[in-house]
Every structure is written in C-alpha cells, then in structure tokens.
C-alpha cells in the first residue's frame, strides 16, 4: 500500500499562518486508512526532508499568498508556480527549496501536491481571520476528497 503523507506547516501563534498545523491536527483525530500519515512540522520546515523520504505521495498544507481573497484555497503542483515573489522562513530556508533539495537527492515522492490557503491576519496570537475560520469544515472536506483521489489513483 502506498504511504500518503499530509504535512501541515506554519506558526500556530501567528494567526492564519497556523492554518496548516491546525487542519492536520483536526484530520489526525479522524479515522483514516493506516497508510495515510499526518505530520505537523510547525516551523521546522527542514524536518520535511526526513518525512518525504518515506512517502509515495504527499499533500502539504500551508498559508500561501496569491492573487485571491482571504480564505480562498488552491491545490497546486510546485511546477505550476511561475515565481516565488518573496519567501521568509526559518534560517532563510523555504519550502520549495527544501523540496528541491529532497528531489535532487532522490529522496522525494513524485507526487507532491500543495494546498495553499490565502492568509489575512498574520499578527502574533492564535486568532485567525473570520474568512478562514468559517471555511475550516470546507477545507477538511476538500482535503478528504483529495486524499481519496490520491489513495485510489
């Protein structure tokens, strides 16, 4: 059976930046087949290197700024992104570079899908934008549909 990973990235104490970990924690409480594994990496993006190695496909959930409304979400592949306008991250690292590194080392699955959710407030604190809070059930539903697709592909 293929191992499918769902990874949440972000800072739970920086408003909407924490949406990835928040969703992963909620999903982890639900019953899923044993080949679907959940990882809340928080701010430690580098830890993705250790996770990708053992997966056959992966869904990464993160706050992603794109032209759209707050709370809007998109599933996309890394090759669908034209440019990364600005990236901030721990030690100047960034997610796409870490994935690139894993691919260069031949330690990343072929299928890597991003779920980007457009953030609004990123201030200190765990309060999220209303547009995100009211969509949480929708995000969970869409993730479950995506995981079904990935699992039976």
């Amino acid at each position, binding site marked *: 059976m293929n191992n499918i990973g769902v990874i949440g*990235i*972000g*800072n739970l*104490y*920086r408003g909407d*930046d924490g949406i990835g970990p928040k969703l992963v924690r909620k999903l982890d409480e639900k019953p899923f087949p044993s080949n679907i594994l959940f990882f809340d990496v*928080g*701010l*430690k*993006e*580098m*830890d993705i*290197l*250790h996770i990708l190695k053992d997966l056959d496909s992966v869904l990464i959930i*993160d*706050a*992603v*700024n*794109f*032209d759209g409304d707050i709370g809007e979400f*998109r599933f*996309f592949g890394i090759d*669908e*992104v*034209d*440019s*990364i*306008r*600005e*990236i*901030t*991250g*721990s*030690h*100047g*690292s*960034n*997610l*796409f*570079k870490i994935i*690139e*590194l894993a691919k*260069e*080392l031949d*330690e990343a699955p072929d299928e890597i899908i991003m779920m*980007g959710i457009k*953030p609004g407030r*990123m201030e200190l604190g765990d309060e999220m934008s209303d547009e995100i809070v009211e969509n949480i059930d929708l995000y969970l539903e869409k993730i479950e549909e995506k995981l079904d697709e990935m699992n039976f592909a």
Partner: protein
Amino acid sequence: MKDINIDVKHVTRVEGHGNIIVDAKQGKLDEVLWEVSEAPRYFEAFVKDKPFTQLAQITSRICGICSIGHALTSLRATENAMDIEVSGQDEKLRKLALHGENMQSHVLHVGYLALPDLVGQGSVIPLASSHPEELKKVISLHKLANEISRVTCGRTTHPRRLIPGGFSKLPSPLELEKLKTKLEESVPVLKEVASFVKELSPALPDFERETEFISLTHDDEYAFYGGKIASTDGGITPVDDYLSVTNEYVVPQSTAKYTKNNRESYMVGALARLNNNFDQLTPLAKEVAEDFDLSPVCHNPYMNTIAQLVEVVHSVEDSLQLINELLDKGIEEQGLNYQPDIEPKAGTGVGAVEVPRGILFHEYTYDEEGRCTKANCIIPTNQNHGNIQHDMEKLVPEMIGEKSEDEMELTLEMLVRAYDPCISCSTHYLDVEFR
C-alpha cells in the same frame, strides 16, 4: 582608492533579520554597523501572574529551535526559586534532551547553512548534486538529533514532558535501547562528516580578534545543564549573580540589548564553551578538535562552526554514556501523566543552561501562591551582538585594499553566520504567482 558601500539588508541563512552596513571613502573606513531590527517579544510580560506550572511551556515558545533549552532554563529557575528537587535519573534525561537539541541545531547550522559558504555556493541545494552522499549523512545526523528529542520530550520541538520536578512521562528502556543503537551507528557517519568539513575548512577566513569568552563551567562535566559562569579572562561567577556578567545596555543601531563584561563585548556559544571547557570534551570530540587545530583559547570567530561540529561529536558520545548509565540503573516506574506533588512558595530563582548559541538565563520571582510576579530572560544571541560589531570594526579595515567589495560582503556575511544568530522567530508563508 575606490569608495566602498555595503548595505546588506537581512543577512541570509540566519534566523531573523540583521543588516550589515559599511561605508569607506578613499580607503578610509567611515562607518561599519551590525544592525538588529528585532521586534520586542514581550514574553517577560506574558508570564506575569501565570502559575509556576505553566512557565516552561510558555517560554519554550520563545524559540522554535531552542525550545528544549528555554524549557529547561525556565524549569531550573522555577526549581531554584521553590527548592524543588529533581532526581538523578531525570537530570540525566534532561541532559540527554539538551544534547538532542544542541545536535539538531548545530547539524542544521554546520550542514545546511555554513557549508555552502565553504564550497562557494549561495545555498545548500547545489551540494545535492556535487556532494550528495555527504549531504545525506548530514541529513541522517539531523534526523537522529530529532529522535533524541522525541524519545526524551515526546516531540522534536516545544517539549510537553518537561515539568517542574521532572517528567510527566518517561521514555521506556526499549526506546532508550533503540536510540542507543542509532547513536552507535552514527559514530562512523560523524567521522566521515568531520573529514568532509575538514577538506573544506581552508575556506574559513583566517581572522583573529582577542575577546572574552563566557560560558557555563562545571567541575564534573563539559557544562550544558547548569554550573557556574566562567570567563576566559578569569573568574568564576555564581549563576545567581548573572547580571554582574551580562551588564545589558542599549545602542542606537539595534532594538536588541547588548552586553559586556570585562571588555567592550564578549562571545558566547560553542567556541566559548570549548575555550572554557576543552579538557572535558569526550575523547572523539577532542580528537576532531585537534584535527582542526582547534584548541583553547581560539580567537577566530569563524571557528565557532567547527566548535559546533566538535560539540555534535561530544553530544553523541555523551548521550551514549548517559543512556548506558540510565539503562544500567533501570528506569523508575511512574504513573501516566505524572505530576509531582509540589507545594508552591514565594521566592526568586535563576536558571542558566547552555543552549546551542550560548548561555541562556531565566530569572523568576514567585509569590506564595506560586504565581510569577517578575521575569527576566537574557538570550545568547543578544550577548553576541556587541562582539559581532567589534569583529566587523577590526575585520573591515584589514580587508580594505585587499578584497573586492563582493568578497568583503561575503566575508562579513560569513562572520555573522559563524555566530549562528537566532534573531527572532518569523512567519513562514509562501508568496507565489501562478502561471
């Protein structure tokens, strides 16, 4: 001679934001500045009125890299304030947890952040094609370090099991056995990584400036978890008198407080620890240090990266020793979600622990109900800012006329990176444009 204008906004491959500014006209240096634009964090205010049982959890959030170190420093301050005892077994497990974090942070810095400079690359990614096997070894060490944290603290970051008086949950002997096997297997990997770094080390700048090195020291061990404050200028200070060592002050170019002791600045971190406690390194760690001609007192700040590598070796060897001692004695039984029976009392306590970037202090005052009335935290990176500034003031005139502006810029960035500063935690969101 050409004018030089260097203005590096946000040095890369460090945690947080710091700027380098150099202005030189006709070969004469006008200004060199290490600017830190760190936003206040207010943790000392957050913990006011909070019960003693919550402080380690809250302050571990100061840093995503040094969360175990902050939690342990916090616990030591609380335990000192209330005379709470910790068993020998739990102290060993805490030391093991600290080794995990130290190793995790050092491997990240040496392997992912500093190595690219030594191979003339802007990031670690080109190493994946030029040195894939070496990089895989670095990654395996990082993973092992995470495993130490997971086994001891239940997580790789923001530990939940560290509580006043001990642990809420202990690792099982089987988990420790498995960890021991992995640590043993890592020794040859460590040796290979060390010789790979050795090959590249001639690229480290040959720069020296005499300064003071401050770290913890302990009669019985290479100090990480408690001890007294030692200086390479001489003198031992009890941890309770830490303010007489740190002497914080403010400078116009920085929102972070600077510190000084016997001289205009001092350095903390792996090199400071090694300079003060070299003889207490484990045998293989000492061998690696000697291989790099690294011995006390080394005044080349660029060698901090090598001192970190030496400490990774030390952490592996000492972790093996700690696990052997724990397994020999057997792990004591304790209930699920164990909470020691602690009667809070009023008092003040200081905790000092060596975290990856140097000596960390927390001081708390509690009222009779065990609520915090006052807190003070002094982090290692702030203790290094003054030393970075003074290094730059000596280094820049030495480079004028000798190096191009680009070379100067890189050498200065490498200097900042050598200190492995952790300026502040930030958000991590991506900003993309779709095709």
